[in-house]
């Protein structure tokens, strides 16, 4: 009995890596799965309703930030809207700190 297990150990010295390597393999498989999932689901079919609304209603912006009008309709805002209270008023909506002004307003 003792001899057999010693031989087994000789043939498979230090199998400490089996479980971590299997986990790593599983991780790689899941990683490949995410890429397949993205290729499978990442298309515009799920957006069909939204695309239809945008085309039908002539919408210009996403309803992501509804707190202020210049963040609700980012692309339609003018230079003054973030400072609507008075010319030196600081923009006080949190979204304002996260959104840049429209690109065309950044041109001199």
């Amino acid at each position: 009995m003792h001899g057999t297990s010693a031989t087994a150990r000789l043939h498979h010295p230090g199998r400490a890596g089996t479980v971590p390597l299997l986990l790593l393999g599983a991780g790689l498989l899941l990683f490949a799965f995410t890429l397949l999932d993205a290729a499978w689901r990442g298309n515009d079919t799920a957006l069909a309703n939204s695309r239809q609304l945008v085309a039908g209603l002539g919408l210009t912006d996403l309803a992501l930030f509804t707190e202020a009008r210049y963040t609700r309709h980012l692309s339609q805002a003018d230079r003054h809207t973030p400072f609507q209270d008075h010319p030196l008023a600081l923009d006080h909506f949190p979204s304002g700190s996260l959104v840049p002004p429209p690109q065309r307003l950044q041109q001199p």
Partner: protein
Amino acid sequence: MNHFVRRQRYLIDFTLASLGRRKGKNLGLLGVYTLIVFLLASVMLFSQSLRREAGLLLENAPEVVVQRMVAGRHDLIPVDYLERIGTLRGVVAKYGRLWGYFYDPAVQANYTLLVPRDRTINSGELIVGHGIARTRGLGTGDFISFRAASGTTFSFRVAEVLAADAELVSADLLLVNEADFRAFFGIAEGLYTDIALEVRNPKEVRTVAEKLTVLLPDTRPILREEILRTYDALFQWRQGIVFVLLAGSLLAFVIFAWDKASGLSAEEKREIGILKAIGWETGDVIRMKFWEGALVSLGAFLLGYLAAYGHVFIFDAALFAPVLKGWAVLYPQFHPQPFVDGLQVATLFFFTVFPYTVATVVPIWRAATTDPDAVMR
């Protein structure tokens, strides 16, 4: 080949057993490393998904929107501007749009009121976005009242609720007919919010815009390509801001990882000395340490990336919602579509796995090339 694979396998076994001897320290490192990858990957996947969605959705936005500017501010545009535009070459359709904002004190939310062109709405009825329906608890057939600009109360019957999966563009929309819109806001006939133009040939859009600025000097044309660029820049900017905010913790991690990977402890030095004394070659020691760096960083990358993928595309980026919401009461409930940019994932992989692996190998190479006796002392 078989021999090479077996050799690497034994090295990996040895490396993992060696890592297991300092379990707490290495698991701690793996945890912090995974968290950093998770944060970076979440921001990256979320921004990329929103950017692609915005691009796909706004592809159908009007080609040109003409706004009238008075003293630098957007103003109502008279209907005769439509006639003044006349028959510009390339413009196949032109129409006035009516839309505006309404602040509802009952829930302290801003709504966007809009007159649709593609459907008829009866007087005294409205169609609500799913976000408003959810916030106000409305369903088809319910009534809702608003105080109009004149001070009188308008009561509307909800004729329809817009699709829930279109919330990203319609959460705060209220669709009413033209007569109700004008009466509600007190906007006289002959005035519109802005004018939209449809241009047949995309190459002609810029020329049309140039002609417009000459023809109507007090107006500003907004092109669809500018709208698309604005959203593209928005999500890049947002991603950039989060990365800047994360920079402090990133630097702390880099210092921590560099110190852990490049500073050899006395125990590790002794281990290398013993390995060399019992006949390991310098190459084997370096290979063993390479596997250590590669396994830790690859493990952290996979764990972090998979967690981020689940966070963004299964749990709808729940951790980011408070940041996006700001003070908004109406926030669209939407499910980000899994648009993954291979190049971005490759960049993330390179910048998370490669530096750590190199940082592990370099000091080992120095220690492994010295005399085992000197290393052990």
